[in-house]
């Protein structure tokens, strides 16, 4: 376990040695699997500690909801409209729906979600790792890459290293932001370059093509959904 964390830590600083070590190691995919699961687990546990501290230093969400509702109802604009029954009913319904969505969107501390992340984060990282690794391997081979799928999975597992930055969320109210995504991209580029012994241009293309393929798939499904929706609604209108 210590060796895996050391490897991820070195990979975080974009050094080529950990990627080469992973490529040459026996059963790299299995080692990669262990690394992705471990990093996901450690990061989720750290995040739960931070969330628990945020929760303990924030007022109860239901108390806030009640205070906000009473505060809004005490406002002059509400008092002017409160005698319209439709307004009151609609307002309370919208307020209730909004309260279910907005606190989550703005990062209100939620212990249940934090605890669930202990399972969901490693699982989602594993799924993304396998999907990206397989698709990028395909493109890398098309570009003349020489690595095996197992080596590829081993090397791309190291691109989970930027998730280690999320360990800072062990402290409450710390935001890591968008840096993890960009850093992951750099690690993936290095993983492909190192695993398949590609030139920088080919490695860059093989790194970005899975993203382009994903965008294409999403766009195709969106278009298809739009066409289907149009057909259904048009059919309904004709009937």
């Amino acid at each position: 376990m210590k060796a895996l964390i050391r490897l991820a830590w070195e990979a975080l600083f974009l050094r080529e040695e950990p990627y080469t070590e992973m490529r040459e190691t026996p059963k790299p995919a299995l080692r990669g699997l262990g690394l992705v699961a471990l990093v996901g687990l450690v990061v989720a546990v750290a995040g739960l500690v931070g969330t628990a501290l945020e929760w303990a230093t924030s007022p109860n969400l239901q108390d806030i909801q009640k205070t906000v509702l009473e505060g809004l109802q005490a406002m002059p604009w509400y008092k002017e409209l409160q005698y319209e029954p439709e307004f009151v009913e609609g307002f309370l319904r919208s307020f209730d729906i909004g309260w279910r969505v907005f606190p989550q969107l703005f990062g209100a501390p939620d212990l249940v979600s934090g605890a669930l992340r202990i399972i969901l984060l490693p699982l989602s990282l594993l799924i993304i790792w396998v999907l990206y690794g397989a698709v990028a391997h395909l493109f890398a081979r098309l570009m003349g890459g020489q690595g095996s799928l197992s080596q590829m999975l081993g090397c791309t597992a190291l691109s989970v290293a930027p998730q280690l930055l999320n360990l800072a969320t062990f402290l409450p109210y710390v935001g890591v932001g968008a840096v993890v995504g960009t850093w992951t991209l750099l690690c993936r580029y290095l993983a492909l370059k190192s695993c398949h012994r590609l030139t920088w241009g080919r490695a860059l293309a093989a790194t970005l093509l899975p993203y382009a393929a994903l965008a294409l798939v999403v766009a195709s499904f969106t278009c298809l959904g739009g066409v289907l929706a149009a057909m259904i609604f048009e059919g309904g209108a004709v009937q």
Partner: protein
Amino acid sequence: MKELLQLAVDTALLRHEAYAQHVARPDALKRGLALLALVTLVAGLVPFLISFVGDIRPVDIEDQRREANQAIQELLTTFDSMRQFIDLPPGIERQIVANMEAGIDMGLRIEALPTALPKPLGRVLQDLGQWLSLPFGRVAGWIGYAIWVLLAAKLLGGRATASEMLGATALYATPHVLGILGFVPCLGGLLGLAATLWGIAIYVKAVAVSHRLSIGRAIVATILPGLLLGALLLMGGLTTLILALLGASS
């Protein structure tokens, strides 16, 4: 730490040898990031300490209400001056003030709600969290731009690895330590401008040394992504404007 400070001084003075030795080290990125984080934390130290001192004192709700009412009075003065130029409906100030007072009352009631841990601890943790988040924000901006510069430099014949270039360009943050005086009126702004220009000079030098490029090519690699982004934004803006005008005319 002493070594890191020496690196900061030497690279801030644009000493070629300091850049070359830094880039050649296997831990260049680690050192560059450490310096970037340190500088950002030092620059944000004064606002953090001001908030910290303010937040460990017990909160007086009446004081807060007085401050809020003062802000409302200032807003009303602004309304008075606006009246010369805009025809505001009669009684609008009264309505706005009544709604704002109710909003302030709601905010103060939320502030008074109990928490599991003592309130000052929560406020201090919030300040600490915001302060410690500063380096992540700077790193996100720097790395987001640097990958495009890396691409531009490679296309111009650069030979640095991602680690070497990022390790070198992270040094651009050094002059931003002047941000510690950012709270001083007028001087803070001037120092911020000086730090930005100085940082760009360090960035160009770092690109030149790490990629073994001439200064001219390094300047092109540094500004090209910015120019392209600017051009794209301009094109997007112009397209939106043309479409809006066409829509209005039809």
